[in-house]
């Protein structure tokens, strides 16, 4: 079992996300992370899906995704083939602010992006391992809320989408 990033380029039609996710559901494959955003080309969306599965299965998934009429192209990558990032937000009670926390924030190169009367929000971008490590530490600081985005990723191979857009 390997972690794969699948990049799906689609037309912007209602229901496309549903069509994509049922391909995973039907095969009983858990989606570890999913993000959707615009791509470089106007009107084309990119959906980034992280799954842990076998290569055989990810090939089949990619082919099934490409069968969707509104999918232009789907690529799959192992972690080494993508530059990827996730963003995490940590809500910490104001009472937990102490020199120990400052050290942790510096260590992780995290930022405080909001301060309210009762809490601060720390932000960290990085790989899941990094944001997870920070989470584990912040549990000791009575963390109130935690949220992590899905993966955003750009591919290292220089293949472009243009040739599929004719």
């Amino acid at each position: 079992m390997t972690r794969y990033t699948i990049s799906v380029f689609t037309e912007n039609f209602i229901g496309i996300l549903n069509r994509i996710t049922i391909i995973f559901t039907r095969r009983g494959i858990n989606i570890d992370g999913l993000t959707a955003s615009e791509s470089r080309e106007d009107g084309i969306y990119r959906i980034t899906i992280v799954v842990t599965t076998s290569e055989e299965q990810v090939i089949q998934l990619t082919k099934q995704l490409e069968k969707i009429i509104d999918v232009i192209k789907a690529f799959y990558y192992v972690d080494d083939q993508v530059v990827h990032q996730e963003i995490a937000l940590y809500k910490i009670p104001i009472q937990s602010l102490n020199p120990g926390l400052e050290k942790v924030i510096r260590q992780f190169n995290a930022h405080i992006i909001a301060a309210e009367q009762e809490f601060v929000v720390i932000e960290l971008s990085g790989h899941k391992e990094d944001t997870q490590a920070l989470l584990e530490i912040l549990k000791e600081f009575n963390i109130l809320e935690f949220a992590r985005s899905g993966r955003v990723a750009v591919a290292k191979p220089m293949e472009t989408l243009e040739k599929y857009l004719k």
Partner: protein
Amino acid sequence: MKDTKIRGAEIVVKTLVAENASVIFGYPGGAIMPVYDALYDYCDQLEHVLTRHEQGAIHAAQGYARVSGKVGVCIATSGPGATNLITGLADAMIDSTPLVCITGQVASHLLGTDAFQETDVVGLSMPGTKWNIQVRKPEDIAPAIAKGFHIARSGRPGPVLIDITKDAQTALHEFNYVPCLNIRSYKPYHKVNPEDIKSAAELIDQAERPYLLFGQGIVLGQAEKELKAFLDKSGIPAACTLLGSGALSQEHPLYVGKLGMHGNYASNLLTNQCDVLIAVGMRFDDRVTGDLKRYAKQAKVIHLELDAAEINKNVRCAVSVQGDCKESLQLLTESIQPKKHLAWLERFRELEQMEKNEVVGNDLLPTKLGLTMGEVIRYINEFKADDAILVTDVGQHQMIAWRYFDYKNTRTQVTSGGLGTMGFALPAALGAQMHDYKKQVICVVGDGGIQMTIQELGTIMQTQAPVKVVLLNNNYLGMVRQWQQMFFEKRYSFTELNNPDFIKIADAYGFKASKVTLRQELRDSVAEMLMHNGPYFLEVVVEKEDNVFPMIATGCSVEEVRLS
């Protein structure tokens, strides 16, 4: 300037006409009423068949599509009308049948409010359609239907559903139909790579025991001639899947039988003895392969297939040739050496003889008292037209009819293959007949399946479509009973049927009908049925507890095919 605006409902009808639809099947209801109102003015251009259930409409559209090669069209209303299409959509999806289904939907301001007869049919049908869309504006109707036809019929065909809100049907707009020829995100064809042809030809030229399997891809790709030319030059024995039947005449000297759970003995068994296996337009369904771990492991597999997702899905191939098999077969024929494989072919004939001795004789020329399904098919063969179309339901009768029907022409086999939909046959036969009243359409059906859609006898009565219904009645859900006998210690749990008097039912529907219980009456009755001009209902009471053989039991390998 003259006002050229028409109602969205009329745009629906005009677009169907522009897309060359000539017969459509459907059932009216509230949310689709504007379309039905518009149809009233187009009866001279578009023949609408009122079925007795929406499931009947979609299966009829499937039967029509299968025999005509055209896109089948059906129409239903919102809510229950739309949900009744789901079985047909799933069936058409797995059997690659081109359909355009149009459903009415509640007015757009009512969407999501649980309005009367509102259901999310786009959501419900998503996994069972090649494409679907909801249209809420009259200007989007013609482009959506045009796109739907293009998607349904191109590449690997499939069903499309277009859901149109009632307000879009009643609002006015110009008729702006333009055929859809290209969709940026959809590339239905793939140019054959000459390198793949070269690699495949090399394997074929070196092969000592090559074997070809063909499926419905030959029919869908209109590659019947190319298949025959390839076989004639290569000398390779060929077997067909359930849906590939008819693509090659069974009288062809290299035809060696049918594949799968109840296919032929030789064609299944020798899959595990060939050295090169060429699969054309088929998808290695589990009913064909049996246990995949023990399927053709000794062979180098060449797969000619249009759908990329089918390549290496179930069986790993040595060479894949992605593309339309009409093109790839032709290129392959040009690239190979002419050969004969007589000794290898002889192996098939030897095993075929074993099947004849142990199974076929008892099926076709039985000596026991009860009638067999096989002998009914034997008499059908004796009197049927060469290009007669066989429509079957699902179960024992389906397998027996498939095994013994004398297929001579392409597009003469209509059955529910992948989904195994009981109740398919009667409406599908009606649909097949609606394409051409002159063709002989023979609907072979069991006593279980016919009762799932028996209401369509009414549609046949109303259209006077000259369908020949052959009911093979064993008072059992026969295939399930066979499995109970073989694998569940004869515990016949809920498989015996207390049936109605079918002849009275047929009579009530105005069919000419007869019932056969004795062997000496069978031949004449079949002859009478096939010579009758209009619809005909023939019930044959067959042996209650007959089994279908050969058989590859679930989980077994193709070489474990049993004769008894």
